[in-house]
């Protein structure tokens, strides 16, 4: 009986030590947090963005830092993964210690604005009229604008010129789904892999599917329309017949791009942000717009981040924040961001002309961005995220063979209606 009680005493002691160290860790944490600048740290401003791939020594970090310098403060930048950023922002909003600036993926803007976490741009006297209407739409909610797109990107089809030449495919012949299908069959007959895209069960999957969905004439307000079924059938047939690899079901846009870079694929659906990488590939590449079902260019979704300002208790901070925002959104600032990143098309006509003067090769991308469509537009706003979740779930079901495209989309429509309360 002696031993267990000694053991108990020892473990109580050990736990007590652990608890004390945990408590001291707790007590010191908030100090560290406020030291990094939310409350009254004067010279330092906090900045969150969804670019963990750009570390402190990157050109992007320097670009952010220089905007702080121009405003006379230092910027403390923290990067999160896109999904984690929304969660972190909500937590910070709840705790009342949100950062001064957040760069948000555009569908998240309406979510955070609806949560009452963001300050309208009009409060800063910032003019939002000069931004392209189709781009800034994602930042609008109930007539107010809660963020400014620091640039925009969208999707197109990259092709491997070597494979197309060998298969005898002229990229200019791709005008609609039928001619694209013929091109893919030709490539397959020539022994190469025809196409890859990302159908992963996340927002990326919806983002990649939308050009085909919209290109068939479908609307996000009706996920189970015959047009939507046509679009999903197109993808499903590609996977079934081996035109696209089965792994697209779990592949992200980055993974499919890596696949394309191996030189084995003729086409890859990917975004503006790969322009540099495509230019450096071991084979010649080119770009065609994603065709609509019956011809013309399909509407592609706009991607890209919005600069937003979370509500602060200390409103005196807004003056400096405004300077940081201006630095990021002047035409020159937009061009600088665009060239720093190599994947942003400026969000104003002014900025677009300036970047084209510098890099005329961007013309097809500027065209694509001008004709692109916001995911939360059509008045979807905060309804978009649950609709998108239903959509990518349907894509996953159909491509994996768990349900037919029609059944999958019918379930998706029911799921979306339930989630948006209609």
């Amino acid at each position: 009986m002696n031993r267990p009680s000694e053991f108990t005493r020892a473990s109580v002691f050990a736990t007590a030590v652990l608890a004390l160290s945990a408590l001291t860790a707790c007590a010191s944490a908030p100090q560290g947090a406020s030291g990094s600048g939310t409350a009254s740290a004067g010279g330092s401003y906090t900045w969150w963005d969804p670019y963990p791939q750009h570390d402190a020594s990157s050109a992007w970090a320097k670009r952010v830092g220089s905007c702080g310098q121009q405003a006379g403060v230092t910027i403390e930048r923290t990067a999160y993964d896109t999904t984690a950023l929304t969660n972190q922002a909500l937590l910070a909003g709840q705790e009342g210690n949100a950062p001064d600036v957040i760069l948000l993926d555009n569908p998240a803007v309406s979510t955070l604005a609806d949560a009452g976490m963001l300050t309208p741009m009009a409060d800063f006297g910032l003019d939002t009229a000069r931004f392209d209407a189709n781009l800034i739409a994602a930042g609008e909610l109930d007539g107010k604008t809660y963020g400014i797109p620091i640039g925009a990107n969208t999707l197109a089809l990259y092709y491997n010129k070597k494979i197309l030449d060998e298969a005898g495919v002229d990229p200019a012949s791709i005008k609609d789904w039928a001619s694209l299908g013929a091109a893919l069959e030709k490539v397959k007959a020539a022994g190469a892999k025809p196409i890859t895209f990302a159908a992963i069960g996340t927002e990326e999957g919806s983002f990649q599917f939308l050009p085909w969905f919209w290109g068939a004439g479908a609307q996000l307000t009706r996920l189970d329309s015959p047009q939507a079924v046509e679009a999903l059938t197109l993808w499903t047939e590609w996977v079934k017949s081996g035109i696209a690899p089965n792994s697209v079901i779990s592949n992200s846009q980055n993974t499919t791009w890596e696949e394309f870079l191996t030189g084995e694929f003729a086409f890859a659906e990917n975004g503006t942000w790969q322009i540099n990488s495509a230019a450096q590939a071991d084979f010649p590449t080119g770009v065609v717009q994603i065709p609509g079902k019956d011809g013309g260019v399909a509407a592609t979704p706009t991607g890209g981040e919005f600069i937003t300002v979370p509500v602060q208790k200390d409103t005196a901070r807004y003056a400096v924040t405004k300077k940081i925002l201006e630095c990021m959104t002047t035409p020159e600032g937009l061009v600088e961001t665009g060239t720093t990143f190599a994947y942003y098309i400026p969000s104003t006509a002014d900025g677009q002309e300036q970047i084209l003067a510098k890099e005329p090769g961007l013309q097809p991308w500027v065209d694509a961005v001008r004709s692109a469509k916001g995911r939360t537009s059509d008045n979807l706003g905060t309804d978009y995220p649950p609709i998108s979740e239903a959509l990518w779930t349907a894509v996953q079901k159909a491509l994996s063979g768990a349900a037919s495209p029609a059944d999958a989309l019918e379930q998706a429509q029911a799921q979306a209606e339930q989630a948006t309360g209609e």
Partner: protein
Amino acid sequence: MTSLRTEPVAVSGAARPAAPRGRARRWTAFAFLAPLIVYLLVFYAYPLYRNIELSVHDYTPRAFVQGDPEFTGLENYLDILADDTFLRALRSTAVFTLASIAAQYAIGLALAVFFHRHFRLAAPLRAMFLVPWLLPLIVSASTWSWMLNSENGIVNAALQAFGVGQINWLTSPDTSLLAVTIANIWLGVPFNLVILYAGLQNIPGELYEAAGLDGAGAWQRFRRITLPLLRPVSLITLLLGLIYTLKVVDIIWIMTRGGPADASTTLAIWSYREAFGTGQPDFSPAAAVGNLLILIAFVAGLAHVRLQRREETA
């Protein structure tokens, strides 16, 4: 009290020096306990309370930030039970958990018995079996998903050598649960091996000698000596395995995100996805699913305590 009244002098004389000492001792005891109590309150009671609170309100992102959620009672729980995903997730959780711990235990026990024979190089080989335990999960789970890739995975390449066609391990609803279970079994074997091996060390060697003299074969020695004497250790291993496996999120999330078409969605994955997985946080249903999971684990924990008590009294 009566004794105090009848013999006031004697009792109070004896009690006076004792009372402060007793109180002081009680305070000392409490002081020693206080950190533990604070620890339990801060790190166990509060999160649990918060989880329950989340699950009986409707926390939209707006309500979460503003702190004014609508009280909905058990509505979240009813919604979850009525959801198509619930039965699927429950079934997947049961399959994943039971298959994992059964295979982990069987393989772990086989390896423990094997290494118990103290042959040359037993120690370094045994150490190598611990590697899965030491690897960060992000590494082992990513490696598994590469190995099981439909087109470029080494597993399919090996199977193709034997004429088996392409198996879409992670991207077919028929195989994705199997794929994550295999990976999880591999991860859990070292834990079972270590505990069972330690248990084997406690079985006296003379028993085996005596059994050998009586003419018992290897199988009989295993059935009549090893298994019964290992029973307490086995029970604890299986119960801990059960509780650990119920909660697994990381490996499934990294390999399949619960997909495709929810085929590998367990209750834990479902809860995580609702809260953090979609960019559209739904904390309330997520907390409700989490609480159901806590309930299941709690029942398993109670069973553990009961069995342990029975073993102790036996």
